[in-house]
């Protein structure tokens, strides 16, 4: 299954220019001067290398992790740190996360890989009933804060039902865990290191679409980016757009096209979905008076609904139009129909115009 997905880069060349454009946006280029241009999986690899190197009590494990992983994120790590710290596990997601919880509860940094977010559900019980409640239920006698669960998520152009899903909303309904999704290589490295070192269990979804496609200058050294802090990656005055992960590249494209038609869009990367940075989104909507949320996951019950409701609660009188949601449809992720299912640039552009002209 993974070999097919490796074709992603070549198949999605059409998207490459758009991703690069996002990556080289002014806010991203600001302090990346001392780094090399690398892709997203290499950035993840660097973060894992630094995590293992900087803390002898850190472990990286999951299915096929030993030889470098099906997306190459763990390349070279077993050689460098040994098979006891970077290792394959049996093919069993509930086992991987359960094992990780136990390892983390002993004061280790347990960095577990779930090969695809589509396969995280056998581990749902361990994440929801165990990891998320470990500290609370014990009155802080025990915690598994050292646990980070990494999983590639989202569309790739040909992944069908089971190599394309965006299950982030399920996890956003669970107090006790954090959900983090990076948009680019530099973000991925900093946010992953922050997630690994955060004293709470984190589910870290990596946009597999961007593993090879997104390239940007990434600082070589050790750095973290703050969790639960959204980032305004494009300033504007007419409408606020909120998204995360791979979808931001598509949204940015829509912003650029809207600008040509005289609409000034503000684009926010939420970065951490729970606990999320309401304040930054609220401040932006107070300025623009309009909000559009876009994600790949099905619209119903998606995290966009939560953002919409929260912002309506806070900014009702300031809103000049209904909150728009441009999301995946309420079907299983369809193979042949993916181009119809996806929240494309033009769907977003139409929604921007409708909202501004409401």
């Amino acid at each position, binding site marked *: 299954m993974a070999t097919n997905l490796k074709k992603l880069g070549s198949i999605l060349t059409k998207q490459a220019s758009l991703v690069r454009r996002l990556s080289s946006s002014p806010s991203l280029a600001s302090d990346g001067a001392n780094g090399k241009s690398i892709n997203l999986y290499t950035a993840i690899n660097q973060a894992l290398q630094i995590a293992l190197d900087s803390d002898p009590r850190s472990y990286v494990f999951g299915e096929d992790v030993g030889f470098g992983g099906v997306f190459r994120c763990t390349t070279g790590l077993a050689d460098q740190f040994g098979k006891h710290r970077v290792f394959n596990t049996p093919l069993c997601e509930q*086992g991987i996360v359960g*094992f990780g919880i136990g390892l983390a*509860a002993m004061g280790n940094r347990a960095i577990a890989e779930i090969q695809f977010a589509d396969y995280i559900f*056998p581990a749902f019980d*361990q994440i929801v009933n165990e990891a998320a409640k470990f500290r609370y239920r014990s009155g802080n*006698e025990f915690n598994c804060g050292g646990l980070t669960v990494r999983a590639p998520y989202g569309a790739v152009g040909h992944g069908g039902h089971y190599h394309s899903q965006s299950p982030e909303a399920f996890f956003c309904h669970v107090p006790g865990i954090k959900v983090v999704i990076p948009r680019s290589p530099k973000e991925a490295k900093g946010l992953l290191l922050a997630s690994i070192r955060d004293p709470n269990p984190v589910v870290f979804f990596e946009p597999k679409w961007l593993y090879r496609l997104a390239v940007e200058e990434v600082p070589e050294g050790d750095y973290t980016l703050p969790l639960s802090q959204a980032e305004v990656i494009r300033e504007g005055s007419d409408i606020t757009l909120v998204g995360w992960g791979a979808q931001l590249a598509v949204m940015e494209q829509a912003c650029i096209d809207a600008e040509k038609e005289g609409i000034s869009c503000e684009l926010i990367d939420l970065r951490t979905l729970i606990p999320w940075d309401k304040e930054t989104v609220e401040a932006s909507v107070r300025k623009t008076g309009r909000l559009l949320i876009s994600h790949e996951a099905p619209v119903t019950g998606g995290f966009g609904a939560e953002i919409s409701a929260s912002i309506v609660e806070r900014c009702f009188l300031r809103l000049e139009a209904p909150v728009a949601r441009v999301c995946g449809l309420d079907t299983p992720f369809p193979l042949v129909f993916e181009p119809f299912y996806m929240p494309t640039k033009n769907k977003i552009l139409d929604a921007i115009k409708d909202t501004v002209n409401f």
Partner: protein
Amino acid sequence: MALRLAGKRGLNHFTKTLILNTTFRSYRSSTTISDSHQSKRGNDYSLFSTNGFVSRRFESTEAGSQLDVLSSDDDEEQNQLGVNFPGGRVAFTSEMTFLPESNEKRVQCYRVIDDDGYPLPSTQFHHVNKELAVKMYSGMVTLQTMDTVLYEAQRQGRISFYVTSNGEEAINLASAAALSSNDLILPQYREPGVLLWRGFTLQEFVNQCFGNKNDYGKGRQMPIHYGSQKHNYFTVSSPIATQLPQAVGAAYSLKMDKKDACVVTYFGDGSTSEGDFHASLNFAAVMEAPVVFLCRNNGWAISTPITEQFRSDGVVVKGQAYGIRSIRVDGNDALASYNAVRVAREMAINEQRPILIEALTYRVGHHSTSDDSTKYRPVDEIEHWKAARNPVSIFRKWVQRKGWWSDNEESEFRSNIRKQVIHAIQVAEKTEKPSLGYMFSDVYEEVPSNLIEQERSVRETIKRHPQDFPKDVPL
């Protein structure tokens, strides 16, 4: 192509064969003919099943008997050599044998003393001295007494819920006695005896059941969800079997730190049907983790008897399939349980490997205070285990016969513990509940902004509608 046809045509014959030959043995005896026949034709890679079909078809033909002459020892040699397969060489055989679904005899159960507390002849066991024996026995009595009083307290409405360990006192205390205090416990919920052994006080148990401010869990969980960091006893959670893969992770940490300790994780017979059980055994074997899996097979998962839980010979046989050394022990024999756990611990640590123990015992009490087990199991069965197979009485007989315990000590000790539990209840009842702020802490290491906002909102609601909220929770 020939094979496929043979298989197709052979299918009917195979069915007939099964009818004609009542055992696989008689069926199997005829396979050699066709095996040689096929290999001479160059079909060395034939599948076992197809092979079988072909053999019967040719057995009755002239061609078949002629081909028999062509067989040679080369085939046998080749079969012995087998195939080099990941994990080691696998020998071939021309005999189509299915592994039986179970062994003819059930796996035996290790015990040291009989139901009257007499040591079995020639049973090997580690000597348990007076101090240890009395501590184990008094722990069992303490657990029994605490259960009785707290069960009554629930019936009186003083606590919301309770689970007794009645019938399982021996495996609770004896397993605890066999461990070092450095060994980590990942419990299910019917092992408070382990925590008791480690020094968790009656007051600490009762505080948890009352969810007062001295409960380490800060009143957040139902009664009996004990946990204590200083006793290396992970906090109980209700979901079944979730602790098992976690135990492997914790054991892996001990392994990496080269600690002289292991993890012991407890679970019931029902747990073995959960995916987490299988995940954990497999992980533990592959990771060579020093973890002892201790199954209290008490016959019942709420109302489901083990006959409706699995078709294997209990739990002990499941270990071997995962490459785990396993033993079945009489969980109502404190000495046998002590010995088995002690040796399991040594092997787990010294050999860095998982061990599976199946302790046969019986849940004499109801599943919980929300259950009436007489609705689904015969009272006679319960009474039998309560009287003839009572682990506390059995061990008492042994201890008293040694002259280490007397009837006087028994009654005095029981009444003393009963008073202590009642006193602990009185203290716990008077102790205030955890304050409201504890509702919002520990969700995350730091309280995030949404929870700060929600706490503010709850406090405003309390001001407006104080009558809606309990008075015993300090604000």
